[in-house]
């Protein structure tokens, strides 16, 4: 489903490459943790999938679609098949929970009827029923991340990319978010999540891909953060 073949990324204004010769295959429905110390290239790898950046060499493909060769005009169509969650939630501060979630449908032209049906479903899925009319500033960090997850999931993407979604949350709130991600994963959505959170990685026992200095140093099924498994 997701495939990196000999991918390298060199930013223009940086001396050393952010990613070097990455080879990675992720199947449909997998849950993969992307770990590694700060600056190891996790976000860069996710940005290549979103085509926010383009690989310097090698191939990045999703479902056989060569992301690197995608014309600018076709990038929106690619992103509609992807859900994205960030550490800082990226909610619209002036819009209610309902409108923030609905935004994901509005920008791709869904009609009012579809929105009225679908949004409450997803708000319930993330456990925010009754808080539809609140503004993001009236929510806890964990709740805000649930809104962001609802928005990312609203169009039922095949792949959900999460860049340190629990980075700003305390451990117990993080567990709630992870449970939610697990539920979304069980609907068949492929999840690729970059994280530093040792406890979470160890608890979930999912596939771990570890980057250091832009290269993959470990790729392990049902792994633990600190253990290499040897």
């Amino acid at each position, binding site marked *: 489903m997701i495939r990196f073949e000999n991918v390298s990324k060199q930013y223009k204004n940086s001396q050393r490459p952010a990613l070097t010769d990455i080879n990675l295959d992720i199947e449909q429905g997998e849950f993969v943790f992307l770990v590694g110390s700060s600056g190891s290239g996790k976000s860069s790898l996710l940005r290549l999938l*979103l085509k926010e950046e383009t690989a310097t060499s090698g191939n990045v493909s999703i479902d056989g679609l060569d992301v690197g060769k995608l014309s600018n005009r076709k990038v929106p169509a690619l*992103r509609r098949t992807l859900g994205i969650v960030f550490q800082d939630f990226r909610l*619209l501060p002036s819009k209610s929970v309902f409108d923030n979630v609905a935004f*994901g449908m509005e920008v791709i*032209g869904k009609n009012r009827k579809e929105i009225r049906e679908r949004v409450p479903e997803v708000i319930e899925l993330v456990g925010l029923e009754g808080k539809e009319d609140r503004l993001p500033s009236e929510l806890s960090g964990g709740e805000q991340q649930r809104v962001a997850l609802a928005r*990312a999931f609203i169009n039922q993407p095949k792949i959900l990319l999460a860049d340190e979604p629990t980075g700003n949350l305390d451990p117990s709130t993080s567990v709630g978010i992870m449970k939610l991600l697990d539920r979304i994963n069980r609907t068949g959505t492929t999840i690729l999540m970059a994280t530093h959170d040792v406890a979470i990685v160890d608890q979930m026992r999912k596939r771990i891909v570890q980057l250091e200095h832009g290269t993959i140093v470990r790729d392990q099924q049902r792994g633990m953060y600190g253990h290499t498994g040897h």
Partner: protein
Amino acid sequence: MRTSFIAREVGGGLRRNFTMTVALIVSVAVSLTLFGAALLMRSQVDRMKGYWYDKIQVSIFLCGENSLAYNCTGAVTDTQRNEVRATLEGLKPTVQEMYYESSNEAYARFKEQFKGSPIIANVAPSAMPESFRVKLDDPSHYDEVAAALEGKPGVESVQDQRKLLERFFQILHGLQTFALAIAGAMLFVTVLLVMNTVRVAAFARRRETSIMRSVGASNSSIRLPFILEAVTAAVLGAGLAAGTLVAVKQYVIDARLQPNLTFIAWVTWQDVLAILPWLFVVGIGTAVLASGFTLRRYLKG
């Protein structure tokens, strides 16, 4: 995208950017009013040319009792008048039409033109010269007519009316050019204002646009609200300009100028209505081009 969603985004954007929006509307209104005024002046000149060039082109004034011209020795005699008439007849077909206006007729026309003005009391009928009014097949044949009649006994002067009018038209043309130049400068200011407004709006909403982009909104749907904001302001400005021109026609031309200056053919409602769509075309065109250009730079996909 759904129209109600876009409408909400556009309305919100215009409110947030209120002072800039007002500035934009005013500058669009001013530049388009001047632009419209220039077009109106052109229509006015066309109307007047059509009206006057059609009527008289050359006036041959005959000597009166008190004429000071050097080949006048008292009032024109019947023989002299017939001589002039015969000369004009002989100039056909260059002379297409001619018409004799007596002192009394000239006085009556004068009274009509200056109805209610105290100037009438100071002018006696005999002070109005009698004349031949002549229409030429081609106005540029004036010299031929002038050569045949100038200095002839009983002829006080030969006047090329077209030349007199032309001087007047030149003044109108100058005014029109001036209005166009200011309209152009104002339009330039408008372009800069649109660019700045859109830039500020794009910056204020960079969070929204980046989220829109990340959920897969197309470039055009990300840019559309910004362009529509500029277009909305332009339409309001063009509306104000159109209203101003209509008011000028109604309250200045029709209510004040027309009744007092009846011998001038004034622009009609048809002329005014033909100009109005151009205000909207220019206003909307400017808004779309300037905002589209700015967004290309500030909202890179």
